[in-house]
């Protein structure tokens, strides 16, 4: 069970081209479809938790591992999901210091960098698609953008503000329906 959890997490991490969010469908298939470690509702809540906590979205595997096999499961799943990506990233940093001088690599980076900027926009739109269930949430994003762009306000405060406005809106809506 523990070994199974570890190898599955390592495998998912190696297929997660495009970052942590790209791996969420793979984790859903593992946790809900293949093993039944989580119910679909549990998985949705786990995704929400992984957004609420700081750090990587793939920290969802800590939750998954805990639900599947307790504390040991949480440790093993977390280690499994981050081990190979860490090795790959550090290796890339090591090798690039040696090969960065090659003009082709610089040209590659010069054109790949704007593509990465574009992909950040894509991630933002993906998140927006799931969160913008009401105009209020579009408004929150609309306020957060200029605050993050032109003020020195700490990102946490902006995020907390968004969460609080959402909670208040949820409460007001709850009162209305009553």
């Amino acid at each position: 069970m523990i070994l199974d959890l570890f190898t599955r997490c390592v495998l998912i991490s190696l297929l997660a081209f495009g970052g942590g969010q790209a791996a969420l469908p793979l984790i859903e298939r593992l946790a809900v479809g293949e093993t039944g470690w989580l119910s679909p509702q549990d998985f949705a809540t786990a995704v929400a938790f992984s957004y609420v906590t700081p750090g990587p979205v793939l920290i969802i595997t800590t939750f998954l591992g805990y639900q599947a096999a307790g504390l040991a499961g949480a440790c093993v799943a977390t280690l499994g999901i981050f081990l190979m990506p860490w090795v790959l990233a550090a290796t890339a940093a090591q090798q690039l210091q040696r090969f960065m001088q090659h003009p082709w690599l610089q040209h590659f980076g010069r054109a790949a960098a704007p593509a990465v900027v574009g992909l950040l926009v894509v991630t933002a739109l993906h998140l927006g698609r799931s969160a913008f269930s009401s105009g209020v949430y579009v408004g929150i994003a609309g306020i957060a953008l200029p605050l993050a762009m032109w003020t020195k306000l700490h990102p946490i405060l902006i995020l907390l503000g968004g969460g609080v406005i959402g909670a208040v809106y949820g409460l007001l809506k709850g009162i209305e329906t009553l």
Partner: protein
Amino acid sequence: MEPRKASLGRSAARAGSFLTLGYIFLRIGATAFGGLGAALALVERELVAKRQWLTAADVTEALTYTKLLPGSTVVQVVAYLGYKLGGWSGSAVATAAFVIPSALMMLALGAAYVSVTAVPAMRPAINGLTAAVVGLLLATAYRLGRANIPDRITLGIALASIVAGVVLGVSAALIVVVAGLLGVCLYALPFRKQATQEDTP
């Protein structure tokens, strides 16, 4: 390239002990609410603006090349920058320190799972949080865009990658690889002689 290498060596020495490095990334890991966008903002603040151990170019470089690799991008950016600051051990310390706070929080949430989901205000609060993340990500894209999109060609690449990602649903890794190869063709091949003359020492 040479002066940059030297500045990296200095910054590694200035980093002094891995204890400081670990402490910094422990703090970033504990406060990077909202994943990649927030973590990048905090790294920019802590390590580029405040301590000047890294340059904005280092952060962009880390982001550009780790996007090509499978796995959590935010963890890999930390691993990459950790390597730049202190080699393999620096990378291990930075990465572990960055992941530990959120892993502990997730563990606590896992343990308190039932009572947390009973709170009805949770869903709209998370939606509000996600909406704020959208704003933060777009601001990060704007800042990185100003640094990395100097002309029409690069602007075209950025716009094309948005279209490819949103409309066509092309995977992020593929987009980055294709854009990079396009860059090699555009910048290197037509001016091959000129480029090789410039780059040979």
